């Protein structure tokens, strides 16, 4: 096997930050090479270098032994390096065929539609994908949309495919299918760089794993030379992981009772469809489901961003769906939003200011109509110490913080009011293991104090570890509850694809 891609001593700095410092590894033809590293370890920067978005300060990239200089994504594509991004680059209103065509270079102005279609169909058949070329993209499942992204790269004859956390949006079954295809591609001599956090997957498909830590490539290990604990320890290194205990919650008191709730989205389709949910005091209720099955709508209703078209939300025995009590009650629900940067923070404002976003009118932070800057600063230094937030110089905008630290800012703000209910939407998405553990600990600690949590997450392992009960959602409906101590991943996976079974829990 020959070396397809060699990366040698790549260094990339941003003002004040060394994102990559002396990173080296090689990818040979026909291997699945996993990049593993905490967030902030430099994975995204490295991928941006490989796809020509960033230019390294020093170091060399070789393709087939020839030194190359990726000045733009176009150049790296020309060398056969393509990437499937976490967020798909598709035009939803256009058909599958049109989307694929859009990605191709050198399509003549007058092109033979049938010939192109046949070519694409050939690829689809080869991998046994069921994909209707004429279907508009928005009608397809997330899994199917991912196939389109892959086909786009294959049509361009990419030799090296980079997949950035591809399984984040898939059911376990869909993920297995993806792995099957990746194996097939590998047998055809394609190379794959696979980025993931999920140990199980890394163990399952990697031929080689390169671990990145704080901008360095720490080690490259061949299959057989690594196991989960070895990878984890290399990845985290000397960093301490938090010790915490998940205590079982036994209370039967119901703090939130959602009955027959329906919510329509902007297109008039039902995001929630006669959805029922009961939340008990002090429990962590995990919500399992493939992304896009109504989890977001559920969180939005509970935080007042959307209104229900039908159904009731009962809190402490009172109907709060559309009463004035709703606003005040909802104001008391803490919320860790899905998309930190788009709804969690005011990016141009300082950490101090972001920490008081929900409580800026409180007497603690204001005197009459004026803000009490001293109290705001004092609060910030307390929270920064308590949650170990790494910030820049005082007053610098929060957008300069890393993802993990932004999440800590949000959590510090949300939990500071000692809420009775927390709605956490993918709270550890994109976080490194250390930060994720910290988030888990904070939620578990809250549960011990009697806080009830609705935990919406995509990683089944995370849900199984954290939850007292798991509710499974499919197409806006509750499929059923399962007990995380008894249920298997397969059972839950089946329920996530809509199969009614699952007993009461």
């Amino acid at each position, binding site marked *: 096997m020959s070396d397809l891609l060699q990366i040698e001593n790549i260094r990339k700095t*941003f*003002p*004040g930050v060394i994102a990559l410092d002396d990173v080296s590894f090689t990818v040979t033809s026909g291997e699945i090479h996993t990049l593993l590293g905490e967030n902030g370890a430099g994975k995204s920067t490295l991928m941006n270098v490989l796809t020509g978005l960033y*230019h390294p300060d020093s170091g060399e990239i070789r393709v087939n032994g020839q030194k*190359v*200089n990726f*000045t733009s994504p176009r*150049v790296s594509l*020309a*060398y056969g390096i393509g990437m499937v991004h976490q967020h798909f680059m598709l035009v939803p209103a256009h058909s599958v065929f049109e989307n694929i065509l859009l990605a191709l270079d050198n399509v003549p102005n007058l092109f033979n539609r049938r010939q192109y279609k046949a070519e694409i169909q050939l690829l689809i058949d080869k991998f046994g994908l069921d994909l209707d070329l004429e279907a508009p993209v928005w009608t397809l499942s997330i899994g199917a949309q991912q196939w389109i992204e892959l086909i786009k790269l294959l049509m361009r004859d990419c030799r090296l495919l980079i997949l950035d956390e591809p399984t984040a949006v898939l059911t376990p079954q869909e993920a297995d299918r993806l792995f099957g295809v990746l194996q097939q591609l590998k047998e055809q001599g394609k190379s794959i760089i696979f980025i993931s956090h999920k140990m199980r997957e890394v163990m399952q498909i990697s031929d080689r794993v390169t671990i990145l830590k704080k901008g360095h490539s720490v080690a490259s290990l061949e299959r057989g030379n690594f196991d989960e604990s070895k990878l984890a320890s290399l990845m985290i290194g000397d960093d301490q992981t938090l010790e915490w205990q998940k205590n079982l919650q036994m209370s039967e008191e119901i703090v939130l009772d959602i009955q027959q709730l329906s919510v329509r989205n902007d297109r008039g389709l039902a995001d929630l469809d006669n959805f029922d949910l009961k939340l008990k005091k002090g429990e962590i209720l995990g919500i399992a489901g493939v992304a896009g099955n109504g989890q977001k709508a559920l969180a939005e209703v509970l*935080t*007042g*961003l959307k209104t229900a078209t039908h159904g009731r939300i009962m809190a402490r025995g009172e109907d709060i769906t559309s009463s004035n009590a709703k*606003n005040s009650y909802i*104001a008391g629900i803490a*919320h860790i*939003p899905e998309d930190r940067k*788009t*709804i*969690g*923070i*005011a*990016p*141009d*404002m300082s950490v101090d*200011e972001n920490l008081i*976003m*929900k409580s*800026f*009118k409180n007497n603690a932070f*204001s005197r009459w*109509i*004026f*803000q009490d*800057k001293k109290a705001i600063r004092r609060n910030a230094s307390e929270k920064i110490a308590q949650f170990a937030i790494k910030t820049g110089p005082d007053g610098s905008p929060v957008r*300069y913080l890393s993802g993990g630290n932004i999440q800590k800012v949000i959590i510090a703000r949300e939990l500071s009011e000692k809420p009775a209910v927390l709605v956490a939407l993918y709270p550890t998405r994109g976080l490194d293991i250390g930060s994720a553990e910290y988030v888990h600990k904070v939620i578990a600690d809250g549960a011990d104090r009697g806080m009830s949590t609705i935990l919406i997450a995509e990683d089944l392992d995370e849900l199984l570890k954290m939850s007292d009960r798991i509710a499974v959602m499919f197409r806006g409906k509750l499929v059923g509850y399962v007990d995380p101590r008894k249920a298997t991943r397969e059972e839950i996976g089946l329920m996530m694809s809509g199969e009614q079974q699952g007993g009461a829990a």
Partner: protein
Amino acid sequence: MKLITERREISSPLIRFAAPIISIAIALFIAGFLLLANGVSPLEAYREILVESLGSMYGLSETLVKTTPLIFAGLGVSLAFRMQIWNIGAEGQIYIGAMAASGVALFSGIGNHWLMMIAMFGAAFLCGGLWAGVAGFLRARWSVNEVIVTLLMNYIAILWVDYLVYGPWKDPQGFNFPLTAQFTDAARLSEYFDTRLHSGFFLAIFCALLLYLFMERTIWGYEIKVIGSNPKAAQYAGMRTGLAIFFVLFLSGAIAGIAGFSEVAGLQHRLQHGISPGYGYTAIIIAWLAKRSAIGVVIVSFLMGILLVGGDSLQLLWQLPVAFVYAFQGLILFFLLASDFFILNRFKLVRSERHA
């Protein structure tokens, strides 16, 4: 070789300070050629601009007189900018403010100076605010683009004033000129140093300080900044963004409306056709250049005042056409705006090779 631009993560203070100065220098340099083409020595002309606008008590007072409405309108526009709301309608709000203040001055019959001032001020504030508030309401309620509404309402406001001064409010003793009768003494702001400088200027400075405190120290200012930085985050933190949009546009228009009050009560002492020669549009540029800061608005307005007065003197002394003054201002603004790009980005040369 390939030239690429890269966004600076942090812009250096040196560049932030030097860029505007360099860009003004380049603008002056290029405008110099225009002057030469008109047979005027550039150095002499620039010296003349400074002397005329700053070199004498009269010149300085005239500069401050021009600065006054620019500060008000600039503050109004910049307040809305803080929330990513684009109030293009300051011009119309000036006219409405002037109209409301004039209405009170002409028809209320109040004799007491202070009562009259308060009534005129209040009318200008309220009417300017409501005028902009229409756009605020439409934006908050039905997401109607405020740029279009505020812009189009300028024409309505200007034509309204024209209708009044050509029609019902026309001074019977005015030899048929489009202007109203002169205000009584009670309806005039005091003047200073035997010049046209009036209390409106000090009111403008006070207003800037007040707005600075409002934005940087109060909980409302905080709310506006959060909404401006990220409306979704604000909404989810429980802020009522719709109400805030209306309120901010109201206040923005109200402050621009005060410019109208200050112009009629301090300077013109009557309502007439064309009371604002585009102050409301210059205000947009001022707000942009001031980077939304209230204190910045005062400084930039003063620079604009120099340009306006100096430009007038170029017309008088060398018989340069007014178009030249506009071109001159345009050049300076163009390069100032361009300097923003260099503050935020940097150039980098990258070697590129032929590829497969």
